[in-house]
């Protein structure tokens, strides 16, 4: 366990170093973002020094690392706020969206994959294949815009871009930063319904992408199990097909499936940039992208650390789940 943690720490350090170097060689001048196009040379130089950019690269990096270790992620130049505060504000929005997306992906994708495998070649299998194919190949921004146009613009079934309707903005006390949960805690049903109507479309979109992946993986895991000998034995013994599939085969694919789901969740955390932009969802993906374009390295590095820690934690968790689900692996 100690070894695992050390290697994870080294992974994070490597990630930071690479991000740092990419940020510094990027052809963007962060000083101009701070002082603006109209600044005099003297004002420019003063800001350049204040940001520590006159120091050699390795000193900048060492300084940054020691600040991070003491919990100081610095100030973002594109928002003017402490990076820690920024992330505390934007991360829950992303977690909320990614969690609901993954939940939809799992609840639809897993049964779809199982049934597709059990009825191999049947119409459900064909449907699952088409669904996955579209999920893989359709550009997400196009689907997002179409979804908005149809379900918000024409039908009016869901809320528009943003996390909340305007009249609910700032009305629910901020506890977790996840509005669905906060409004439940406050027992504000109207606010909950409003937040739900805003999240359901982007979450379904993300859910669709993750279900495309999850259902394919479930199907192939399932097919592997169904051709195994113990399944034949069970069938010969006259067990009903339903039991064969769900009791025996499914239990055995639960373990690799956990990893698939964890990975899919992780990629939704970092990869929902386009969705966040289309739906004006003020989350981490949008935050890091904007920071990157502004050469705002404190914000980019802060965001990278959060994503890195998430992946590492998800890996650890799925490791632990393995052990719980499959005692043999310890």
């Amino acid at each position, binding site marked *: 366990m100690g070894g695992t943690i050390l290697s994870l720490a080294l992974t994070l350090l490597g990630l930071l170093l690479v991000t740092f170097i990419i940020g510094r060689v990027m*052809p*963007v*001048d962060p000083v*101009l*973002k*701070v*002082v*603006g*196009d*109209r*600044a*005099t*040379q003297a*004002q*420019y130089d*003063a800001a350049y020094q204040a940001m520590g950019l006159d120091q050699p690269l390795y000193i900048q990096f060492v300084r940054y690392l020691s600040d991070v270790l003491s919990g100081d992620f610095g100030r973002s*130049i*594109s*928002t*003017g*706020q402490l990076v820690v505060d*920024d992330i505390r*504000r*934007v991360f829950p929005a992303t977690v909320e969206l990614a969690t609901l997306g993954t939940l939809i992906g799992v609840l639809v994708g897993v049964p779809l994959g199982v049934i597709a495998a059990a009825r191999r070649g049947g119409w459900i299998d064909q449907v699952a294949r088409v669904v996955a194919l579209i999920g893989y190949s359709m550009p997400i921004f196009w689907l997002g*815009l179409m979804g*908005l*146009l149809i379900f*918000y*613009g024409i*039908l*009016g*079934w*869901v*809320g*528009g*871009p*943003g996390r909340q*309707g*305007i*009249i609910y*903005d*700032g009305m629910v006390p901020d506890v977790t930063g996840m509005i669905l949960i906060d409004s439940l805690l406050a027992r504000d049903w*109207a606010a909950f*319904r*409003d937040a*739900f*109507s805003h999240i*359901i479309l982007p979450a379904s979109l993300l859910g669709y992408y993750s279900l495309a992946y999850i259902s394919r993986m479930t199907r192939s895991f399932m097919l592997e199990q169904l051709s195994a000998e113990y399944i034949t034995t069970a069938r010969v013994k006259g067990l009903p097909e339903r039991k064969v599939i769900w009791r025996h085969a499914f239990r055995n694919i639960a373990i690799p499936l956990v990893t698939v789901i964890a990975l899919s969740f992780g990629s939704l955390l970092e990869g929902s940039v386009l969705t966040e*932009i*289309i*739906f*004006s969802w*003020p989350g981490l993906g*949008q*935050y890091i992208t*904007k920071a990157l374009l502004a*050469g705002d390295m404190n914000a980019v590095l802060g965001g990278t650390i959060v994503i890195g820690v998430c992946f590492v934690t998800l890996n650890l968790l799925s490791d632990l789940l393995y052990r719980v689900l499959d005692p043999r692996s310890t």
Partner: protein
Amino acid sequence: MRHLLTPRAILLASALAIAPAAYAETPADTLVVAHAIDDIISLDPAQTFEFAGNDVNNNTYSRLVEFDPMDLDAGFQPSLAESWEVSDDGMSITFRIRDGVTFHSGNPVRAEDAAWSLQRAVKLDQTPSFILTQFGFTPENVDEKITFDDSSLTLHLDQPYAPSFVLNCLTAKVASVVDKELVMANAEGDDYGHAWLNTNEAGSGPYTLAGWRPNEAVQLTAYEDYFGGAPEMKRVIVRNIPESSAQRLLLEQGDIDVARSLSPTDVEGVSGADGVKIQDEPRGRMMYMGLNQKNELLSNPAMIEAMKYLVNYEGIAGTLLKGTFVPHQSFLPKGYLGALDDMPYSYDPEKAKQILTDAGITSGEITTNVRDLREYVDVAQALQASMAEVGITLNIQQMTGAQVLDAYRAREVPIFIGEWGPDYADPNTNAATFAYNPDNSDEAKATGLLAWRNAYAVPEAMGQATVAATLEQDTAKRADMYVELQKQYQAEAPLIPMFQRIEATGLRDNVENWNSGRAVTSAMYWQVTKGE
């Protein structure tokens, strides 16, 4: 009852469960604006210099003099200063401060606060401070140069500047009056409360800041004791929605009242929609072309003249820029004192060719950098085509905005195509950057001057005329001086103003008196009303 649970019924039921939350109009006393507000990095008026931040400060702070949103053409009007008097020698201006005005904190607005605010901005020396320091104030002398007593404040200038110049500059956001007591109570070290004011507000304007979440939203609440009368809109919410298509949907659905970043396509699309209207306003931004005088070919007067005939003004504005810009050929945007409306140049490649042949130029090649934004690349390509007609090859290298800006500030862009927005409401703002460059050497590093960036050694007489116009006491005469200056500039300068920005704002039908600030100032909310 089984038949009730058909998929169709379930779909319908879930739609009904959600639908009632969708989507009444915005509340009658709330103005909801969609805009791109991700340029705000500080709300301290001594630092704020970008559009969205200026919009906030314009509504939360008051200044000595301000524009009347219902009559921008009237120019600066009394605000916290109820009157002013220029000394006989023109070297000082004394303002009488309005009585009985209070800050949002409840503190009275005193002459001391106003003086301190200006001194503070000079001492903090952030980017917009030059708007004040051009009157001879420095961090060292400003305490003596700006004086006050119980009811008045006096600016002691280093030159007898045109009063209209000084007063126009005082409408800039950097001249906002802040609440000294409140700010100093929150100061850290000797930062004059800068860190605190980055995210807080200490003004006496029509709105108070209820909240700012970066990249997300700004919320304002009406200040009931505002000396100009409480605004009708009790809340203003500005949401960061940069996507034009999303803004359009929200506007059509009535979830927002104002959409400020609609693309030309969406403006067209929304025009026919029920309950929506479009308001066009000429803004201050100019699109211009800069010919770098370090380039041998581009510094030839014949080439400079020919280029002015190679721009397809009407065609580009109509087809490529789709009405977001209109042709405008002088450096002062329409709406400024002394702005020149003449458009002596039109697209005429034959004439350009003649001019070049007469000067012995029949071929040439130029490689330039262009920002990788659709509209700039389009304009550059149009230019490329018309230059080819006179035998000159233009090679275009696309770069990011930051890269081009770096190169431009290092005087390394041969033909620059870009935009310039005025910094304050006086004609000197553009005159001083387009037509003034006292030291054209590389060492001068006058990166703030557009003339310097293009290595344009402004003729001495023109530079003097620019300065003289800031000193003319008679406003009508002053306007004439700018007209003359622009005519001369138009004829000979290698910086070629081409277009002025038109901003199309999408409004719900019932929104009245919306004002984005036209060419001279920022958005104003306190005059906005919503009818039935």
